[in-house]
């Protein structure tokens, strides 16, 4: 027995629950979790005798909707009834034991669908053919005389019918076909439709689906304190006072954090405040915003930087340009601020098996992190994937929460402990969107056309934090040069230099990593259009190849937003176009200014070409999400550094937009087919520049640093 089945888990939980109405709805998958009569046709498809279909989901669900959309793709090819479909997370333990049968479990980069759609659709189609073959064998007829549709196999000649549930067990014993034909998306019946999301009913009922909701027999709770200066260590701990407090079981001291374990999280957190911790803050306790800015600015001046792009001779072309325009742009650090703080429940069981429940974007990394910390082999570990209370990149590459959770479990052997950070801890110990500074020089000809562009980017490298330079060919960090290294505009002379300046603040993949560059680029292009006296849409279109999909979405958004029609007095608009994460997006933002100079964004129109659309409603929801997430960063979010630490601590000084600040969002889906793009991040790329370009239209002021709360804006 290497995993705990749902049935066993339920039994244990309710036995110890002491009559409390324990609600167990945790997603747990393993073969044992299904009734013996159900049949695993293949790793992705389980069919019950009553025709219920369970689709295994390898990627994580953090609100983006792929828990449902991935099931749609499998169900489409399986050709079952959607009303009979449910989904469950694949077991990471079983995943490793079965030679990574479910492919990548990583959920980031808007990749859940686009990097798994081929093998998922094949899994559905393979299962369908096996079901057909099993029915044909039962009827003793050739399979090609049979068809499958909506969960039923029909023998065309005789009209005999069998339901999937009746032949699933027999189908599961067959050898899978190796060559299956996939349905053309134009014939989709389940995929491509706005079916209701499978995870929402439990979420509106308040069912315990999130990492912080785990409840286990005898479970204790932990709150954690880490050195406020990044990179610091614990010097000494005096937990005597805390240990006298009610419910406190243990003060756990690790190399770089302290945890208090108690019988209730509030008690643990109260007691943590009474623990006297002396930190060795290391060498970074003097670092502040100015020091970070100086570090980045030093990068702008550095000679012989690695080049992310070199086309033609930008330096020479700038020297001979009719006009040269130069600007510097910058952005601050930003926390992900997931609503659910970082959390991990871990239980080191007496028999040498470790169970972990956590909200993770990367279950395989959670497994290997748990193995490293516990010293146990992977087959002695299970990570139960919980629904994420937001991810946005925070819960992927950094598995700090699993590292801590398992370390605490080791200190409390035999006892399940649920570790959760306070909001303050979460705000001050993130993996922040990097602060960055860029300098852009553009050469224009006498008609104002862009002939040369030289961009220097000074930005910490996210890749170097997580992969130790392994993913940095030529010294170039992919996210750090986004939107410049792959700029679609046909500019004959381009050079993009990258100055890696890392600093001590941990950086990470914040929704659409590298998106600051889309803000810089599309704002700067707007500057050039203004300098040339050209319409911002026309100016961009003139630099986009006829076949470029960026052109298509730009034209689509201009049409949908009635770009060529004047706005009512007092309203202003800006435009931006950017591609990323496999998709092409263009945005128009419309706004007004209050007499006090406050920006009120009223309407955002977005056009997206993602090739295909699996669930149009989820795609629209992601566009709305990107607008709101991006708007907070434009309006007021910033993580300041002082004394080597993050200044902000909670939502009073790291504000999120409220309902009254949200613009109308209109999303135009223009899938052109032939490729698979993502929806989780692409639409955020153009938000900041579209808003800032609209502010320029309103005020004549170019916004070269965010957030806007630092700007003194007045209508013209």
């Amino acid at each position: 027995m290497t995993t705990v089945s749902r049935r066993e888990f339920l039994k244990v939980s309710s036995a110890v629950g002491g009559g409390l109405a324990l609600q167990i709805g945790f997603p747990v998958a393993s073969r044992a979790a299904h009734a013996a009569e159900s049949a695993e046709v293949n790793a992705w498809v389980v069919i019950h005798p009553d025709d219920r279909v369970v689709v295994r989901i390898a990627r994580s669900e953090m609100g983006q909707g792929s828990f449902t959309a991935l099931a749609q793709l499998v169900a489409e090819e399986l050709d079952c009834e959607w009303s009979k479909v449910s989904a469950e997370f694949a077991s990471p333990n079983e995943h490793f034991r079965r030679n990574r049968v479910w492919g990548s479990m990583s959920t980031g980069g808007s990749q859940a669908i686009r990097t798994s759609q081929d093998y998922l659709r094949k899994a559905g189609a393979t299962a369908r053919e096996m079901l057909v073959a099993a029915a044909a064998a039962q009827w003793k007829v050739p399979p090609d005389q049979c068809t499958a549709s909506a969960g039923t196999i029909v023998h065309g000649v005789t009209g005999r019918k069998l339901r999937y549930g009746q032949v699933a067990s027999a189908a599961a014993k067959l050898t899978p076909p190796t060559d299956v034909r996939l349905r053309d998306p134009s014939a989709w019946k389940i995929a491509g439709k706005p079916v209701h999301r499978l995870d929402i009913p439990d979420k509106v009922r308040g069912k315990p689906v999130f990492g912080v909701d785990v409840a286990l027999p005898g479970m204790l709770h932990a709150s954690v304190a880490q050195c406020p200066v990044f990179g610091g260590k614990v010097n000494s701990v005096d937990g005597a006072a805390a240990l006298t407090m009610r419910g406190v079981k243990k003060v756990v001291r690790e190399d770089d954090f302290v945890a208090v374990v108690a019988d209730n999280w509030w008690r643990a957190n109260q007691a943590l405040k009474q623990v006297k911790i002396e930190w060795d803050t290391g060498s970074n306790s003097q670092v502040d915003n100015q020091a970070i800015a100086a570090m980045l600015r030093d990068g702008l001046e550095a000679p012989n930087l690695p080049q992310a792009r070199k086309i033609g001779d930008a330096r020479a072309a700038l020297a001979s340009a009719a006009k040269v325009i130069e600007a510097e742009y910058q952005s601050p650090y930003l926390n992900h601020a997931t609503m659910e703080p970082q959390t991990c429940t871990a239980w080191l069981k007496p028999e040498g098996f470790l169970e972990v429940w956590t909200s993770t974007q990367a279950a395989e990394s959670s497994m290997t992190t748990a193995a490293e910390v516990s010293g146990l082999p992977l087959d002695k570990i299970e990570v139960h994937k919980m629904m994420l209370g937001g991810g946005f990149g925070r819960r992927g590459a950094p598995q700090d929460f699993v590292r801590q959770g398992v370390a605490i479990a080791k200190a409390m052997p035999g006892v399940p402990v649920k570790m959760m950070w306070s909001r303050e801890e979460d705000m001050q110990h993130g993996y922040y969107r990097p602060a960055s500074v860029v300098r852009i020089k553009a050469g224009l000809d006498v008609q104002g056309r862009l002939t040369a562009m030289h961009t220097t980017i000074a930005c910490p490298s996210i890749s170097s934090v997580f992969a130790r330079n392994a993913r940095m060919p030529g010294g170039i960090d992919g996210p750090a040069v986004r939107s410049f290294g792959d700029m679609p505009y046909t500019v004959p002379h381009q050079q993009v230099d990258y100055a890696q300046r890392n600093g001590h603040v941990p950086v990470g993949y914040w929704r659409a990593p590298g998106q600051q560059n889309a803000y810089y680029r599309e704002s700067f292009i707007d500057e050039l259009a203004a300098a040339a006296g050209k319409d911002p849409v026309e100016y961009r279109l003139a630099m986009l190849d006829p076949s470029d999909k960026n052109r298509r979405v730009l034209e689509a958004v201009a049409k949908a937003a009635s770009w060529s029609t004047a706005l009512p007095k007092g309203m202003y608009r800006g435009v931006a176009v950017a591609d990323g994460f496999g998709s092409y997006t263009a945005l128009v933002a419309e706004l007004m200014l209050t007499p006090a100079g406050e920006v009120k964004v009223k309407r955002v129109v977005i056009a997206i070409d993602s090739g295909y659309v699996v669930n149009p409603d989820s795609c629209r929801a992601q566009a709305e999400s990107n607008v709101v997430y991006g708007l907070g960063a434009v309006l007021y979010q910033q993580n300041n550094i002082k004394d080597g630490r993050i200044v902000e601590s909670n939502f009073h000084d790291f504000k999120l937009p409220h309902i009254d600040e949200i613009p109308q969002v209109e999303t135009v889906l223009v899938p052109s087919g032939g490729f698979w793009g993502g929806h989780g991040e692409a639409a955020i790329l153009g938000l900041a520049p579209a808003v800032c370009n609209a502010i320029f239209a309103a005020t004549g002021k170019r916004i070269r640093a965010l957030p806007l709360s630092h700007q003194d804006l007045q209508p013209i």
Partner: protein
Amino acid sequence: MLTLNVNGRARSIDVEPEMPLLWVLRDELNLPGAKYGCGVGLCGACTVHIDGQPVRSCSLPVSEAVGRKVVTIEGLAAKGLHRVQQAWIEHEVPQCGYCQTGQIMAAAALLANNPHPTDADIDTAMTNLCRCGTYLRVRKAIHAAANDLSAASTGKA
């Protein structure tokens, strides 16, 4: 011992009177629907009803809930789903869903006090934070639930 009325049931608990109601619900009574988001009453993920009014349970000492009717998301509908929950499903409001139990409790209290809220009423009442940005659908679902209510009261449901 304190006695609370939670979702229509009397619940006896032995806790410090200053313990916030949220932690009594989550860690003592195993009602995890109300969520911790900020601990200081800013985000509203912990919203429950006390005597029908929306309250941030992270900032309310449990002693102040004694003698009053506490309703959590788990007890919002006597059976089945509350019309706000139904509207939330129909309009696909949640994304990650973490803040949504608080949003739903705030919306249900708003409609109980004001069956036909205007957009301005919604702006005032719905101060809950959502990091996924579901606000447009929150507004749409509240209006839809209000219309369901009026349809029901005129016998057209």
